[in-house]
Each structure stands twice: as structure tokens, then as C-alpha cells.
């Protein structure tokens, strides 16, 4: 149990750092969605399924898609 949580936290930290260092904006959006998805898994392990559901839908789903739409609207060469 504690090992699963540890692995989840390390993966979350890794993807959160990836958000900062990825050059491609769309990949950074995907990495931030991964952080939310892993966080929702963590909530499941903490026996908070309601919060996990909200986190998965809003964090990984809606905000990720919103960011993706905004990235698509940016003029080309706005990466980096």
C-alpha cells in the first residue's frame, strides 16, 4: 500500500517536472493531465472516490482539453 502510494507520488513529481521542461506546449498539457490522473488514483487509495471522480473529470479531462484548445489557438512559433 505505502509502496504504491510512493510510486504514484514519484510519478506525479516526475510528470510535474516534465510540464516545466517539455519544449512542446501540447506535450506539457498532456503531462499536467497525467499529474491530475495520478492524483485521482491517489484519492482512490485514500478512500475518497467522490473526490477522485471530480479530480479525474475536472483535472485530467476538462482543464486539459481547455488548455489544449488554447494551445491550438496560439500562433505558430509560440512554443518554447
Amino acid at each position: 500500500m505505502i509502496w504504491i502510494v510512493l510510486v504514484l507520488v514519484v510519478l506525479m513529481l516526475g510528470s510535474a517536472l516534465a510540464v516545466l521542461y517539455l519544449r512542446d506546449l501540447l506535450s506539457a498539457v498532456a503531462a499536467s493531465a497525467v499529474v491530475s490522473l495520478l492524483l485521482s488514483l491517489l484519492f482512490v487509495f485514500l478512500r475518497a472516490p467522490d473526490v477522485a471522480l471530480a479530480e479525474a473529470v475536472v483535472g485530467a479531462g476538462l482543464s486539459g482539453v481547455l488548455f489544449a484548445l488554447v494551445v491550438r489557438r496560439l500562433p505558430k512559433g509560440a512554443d518554447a
Partner: protein
Amino acid sequence: MKTKRELHLGGLIFIVGLGVLLAALLNQLGFGGAPMEVGQGMNALGGATTGAGNIVTSVVLSYRGLDTLGELTILFTAATGAGMLLARSREAELADAAAPGAIVRIAADLLFPFLLLLGFYIIIHGHVSPGGGFQGGAILAAAYFVPLLTGAGRGLDERSASLIEGLAGAAFIAIGLLALAMHHGFLAPIGPRGTLGHLFSAGSLPLLSSAIGLKVGAELAGVLAHMGQLEEKP
């Protein structure tokens, strides 16, 4: 104009302050121990008094129903503000997105009805299993995001979205006022409790949950319809 060094110093002070705050909190609270006793009382009484199998829903919709109304108001204001902002910047330039391939388009078409089904399932079963109005409504809105992202189709139009949103919000308040008229508290659960864990149980809680779900879904999808209009103008 701030120099770079000043910005770094500000960040450092913030991190140190956050660390002190967290250390103080950890020092005060034992891990896993509840600092307040309201929760234990609700856990003991919630199922019996509201008839909802999911304690979280009974708290969100019944004990703290007024807070939920406040949250709905906040969401409404935020959606209105976003709509105003998006409506103003309509002539912004667009980067031309690549047209989606057949696999993405067909997968999006297949995903859409299943997302709708999942959203309505989570809304309707909010009082029995994890989930409820907010989560299910967000899934409904996500279902309308999918065709927009792939460019496969168009979401629902703004007028019907705002109509659904207004009716659902009015229904939420009307159920609350009905409970008040029946000499209960505002938003207190009314109607037959039914059997714990059944779909038709917990009185008015499923109705409140449905109202919230439709309102949240229509609101988020309305923001989306605005963005979709932006996308369509080349």
C-alpha cells in the same frame, strides 16, 4: 520594475513561509485524526436521516445544501464572465489545426454516446454510489468537448444550453423552497426515504442531484460552445 534577484527572493520567502506553515500544521494534527467531531456525527446519522447510501452526497445536497447553492452561483458567475471575455475577442487569429484522421474522427463519434451515458449514470446514482451532480455534469460537458477537439462536429447551441441551465438552477431553488414550505429547513430532504441503496430512495436528493448535473453540464458546455464559435471562424 522588479529585477530578477528580487523575484527570486520573493519565491524563497514564500517557500520558507509555506514550509513553516506546513510544519506547524503537522505538529498540531495527528495524521488521520479528525480535528472536528461534526463528521463523525454525520457518519453515524446521515444514512438513517436522509436515506442516501452515499454520505458525501447527503452532506453536499442536504446538510450543506446552502453551500452548494453558493457554489452554483460562483460557477454561474464564472461562466458568465468567461462568456463575456470570449465573445469580445472573436477576431483573434487562429493557427490552422491539422484535420483529424479517420481513426480519431470515428473514435470520437463512438465515444460521444458512451460519455453521455456515463454522465447521466453518475448523476442519477449520485445518492447511491460515488459521484453526483458536479462530477456527472462535468462528464456531460466533456462529452461535448470531444467532437470540438477533433473538429468532427459541433456541440449543442448556446440558446438551448442557457435554457437548460436556467431551468435546472430554478428547479434546485424551487425544491429547496418547497422543503421550506413543508416546514422543514431550506433544501432539507423531502419525500419518501425508500430503501437504503436503492435507485428510488433518499426523497428529493436525486432530483437535486439531477438539477445540479444538468446545470453544471450546460454551463460548462456553454463556455465550450463559445470557444467552438471561435474555432469555426478562420
